[in-house]
């Protein structure tokens, strides 16, 4: 309880500090370069100066935090990836050479590509289908809320939920995991799903698809509603059936949104960490880059060189999407 009070106290303090900073600097700026009450060239000169400085006063705290927590670390990580485990000795590309020869790293890259192929595709697909279906029925909003719900659940919470689904009891005893219970009821053998190499990756992916489908559904549902009615009416008049209208009229009109959803989930997949850590911690050939990176951060006292170089690999995979996002955003602003 005491620490909660401390937290609230700090929060109030932090907000007050912000208020004091913004109000104080703004007041100071107007005091040093007054424009009110003055006339002539001095006033317009002061006004020009304050207008040039004020935006930076407004942005300074945010830019400072962004610089320390995101910009500086990017460069520092790149630097560390070229150094040894303690970050002292320059070692060139040897961390990256080590990577290529490391079977665990190759396993992670392979698994990450599997995740990249499967999770964004299936999440988007399910999201699109559910968005289209729920728009047609009266209880669609309730259905959407329930499918959207896993979005609020932490990856670790989701891991526990699904670990319970996948729970395994040896053959003969009663299964308490629903998946094995269904398998047994249909006459199959119970399996310890998490320990079957290769396929266990897919059982992990199910968790992320379960979480992300709601996100895809919400975005795509809004996009589907934005489609002009006339295009659909025209197709109906031309005698198109439901599937034709959906795939040939509606989907092409929301390609842009589908791409946004796809790339957003792709970024998330590249960083997937909690699920793998909680379910298998990379055992049974389920390792992924983010978990491997975390592992090297602390393994044997921590190898910052190797850890940073794995982070750099994740960053390199993200860069194409980053460029695409920036281009889209700039184009939107010019419009």
């Amino acid at each position, binding site marked *: 309880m005491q620490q909660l009070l401390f937290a609230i106290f700090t929060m109030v303090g932090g907000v007050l500090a912000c208020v004091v900073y913004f109000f104080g600097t703004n007041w100071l700026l107007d005091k040093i370069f007054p424009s009110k009450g003055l006339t002539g060239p001095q006033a317009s000169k002061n006004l020009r100066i304050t207008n040039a400085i004020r935006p930076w006063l*407004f942005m300074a705290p*945010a830019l400072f935090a*962004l610089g*320390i927590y995101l910009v500086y670390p990017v460069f520092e990580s790149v630097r560390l990836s070229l150094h040894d485990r303690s970050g002292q000795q320059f070692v060139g590309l040897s961390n990256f050479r080590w990577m290529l020869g490391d079977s665990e790293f190759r396993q992670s890259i392979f698994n990450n590509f599997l995740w990249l192929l499967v999770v964004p595709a299936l999440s988007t697909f399910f999201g699109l289908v559910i968005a289209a*279906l729920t728009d047609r029925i009266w209880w669609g909003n309730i259905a959407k809320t329930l499918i959207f719900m896993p979005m609020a659940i932490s990856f670790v919470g989701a891991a526990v939920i699904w670990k319970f689904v996948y729970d395994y009891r040896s053959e003969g005893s009663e299964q308490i995991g*629903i998946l094995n219970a269904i398998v047994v009821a249909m006459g199959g053998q119970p399996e310890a799903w998490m320990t079957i190499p290769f396929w266990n990756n897919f059982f992990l992916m199910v968790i992320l698809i379960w979480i992300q489908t709601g*996100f895809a559904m919400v975005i795509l549902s809004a996009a589907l509603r934005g489609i002009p009615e006339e295009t659909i009416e025209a197709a109906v008049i031309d005698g198109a059936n439901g599937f034709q209208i959906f795939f040939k009229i509606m989907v092409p009109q929301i390609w842009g949104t589908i791409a946004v959803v796809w790339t957003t989930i792709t970024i998330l997949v590249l960083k997937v960490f909690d699920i793998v850590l909680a379910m298998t911690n990379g055992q049974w050939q389920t390792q992924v880059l983010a978990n491997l990176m975390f592992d090297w951060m602390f393994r044997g006292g921590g190898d910052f060189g190797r850890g940073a170089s794995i982070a*750099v690999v*994740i960053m390199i995979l993200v860069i194409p999407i980053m460029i695409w996002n920036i281009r889209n955003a700039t184009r939107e602003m010019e419009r």
Partner: protein
Amino acid sequence: MIATSRSPLIIVVHLSVLLLVALWTLPTAGLLISSLRDKDQLAVSGWWTALSTSSQNMTGRAASPDAQVEKDGKFVITGNLIEGGTSKVSAFGVRPMRPTAFEVGTTADIGDGQTLTVNEDGSYEIVSPTRMEGTRGQRIFYTASVPPRFTLDNYREVLNAEGIGASFINSLTVAIPATIIPILVAAFCAYALAWMPFPGRAILIAVIVGLLVVPLQMSLIPLLKLYNGVGAFFGVPAKTYVGIWLAHMGFGLPLAVYLLRNYMAGLPREIMESARVDGASDFDIFVKIILPLSFPALASFAIFQFLWTWNDLLVAMVFLGTGNNELVLTGRLVNLLGSRGGNWEILTASAFITIIVPLIVFFSLQRYLVRGLLAGSVKGG
């Protein structure tokens, strides 16, 4: 897909949505139901049987020979295998290999001339012609049908004994300031980017869009080094709540600035121009006009940031200690998965406590969450 309400296709639509909803909700429902079940039942039967009477194989022990009484020249021990329950015994036995050798109500010969009777209500009677020796009672195996039993015991246990209660406070301690503090910082920055012309503005916006997707992994090692350095320099611990609040603020700022800038840029220009004509400064316009008008966007961001900081594991594992007054719920849950892997009564109850707060936020503020998603879907979480 495009079925009008008269088409027969609509039934297919109803059924497939029903199936999808079931697929998406059953895992969570299983967790919730299991967390409320009696732990002995939870361990032996699936949660979908929670409402039906289950039959369990159990082991009991009769009272020790000290309790024997002499009756009609015979020595008798009586008692009940089921204390205060409503279970019903259907079969019993005395050997572990044959736990259901005898039907309930019958009298079984258990050697040395002794006989054992077990009734449906769990009462038993051992009769021996001679005085029974030893200090331990006869072991009795029995099969009982147990009626469904729901209890809050699991929650009571994890909140106290497993440290979930303490972690709940820790998670709140992390999440509340980490949600509130960035809002004002981001709002001022967003206003400058939306409505104050200055050279380099377009580049700054592009940089912020780029920072939206920078993987957290890039920040971990440099910041860990930085925190250790700062800690050593000032002689304070490197892992503190202040550290994680600032870290969450830094990581949340790109989304905050991006969301708020987009929202503010969409506000009508006339409002600001007429205020400026009336002699209002940028500061006045921001505080008195923009900030109140931006409430929906601020709420969206606050919800995102709260869910993100509450559900976060990675940042807490790196920047916060693992002591009892620092370990957050997600971290505690991962530890429990390792140490209590098979104790589902503990795992399900703990997991439900970790997800209940986000679920409440989700169900009560879903509107703002959807709006935020639609506005900021470039961000990857």
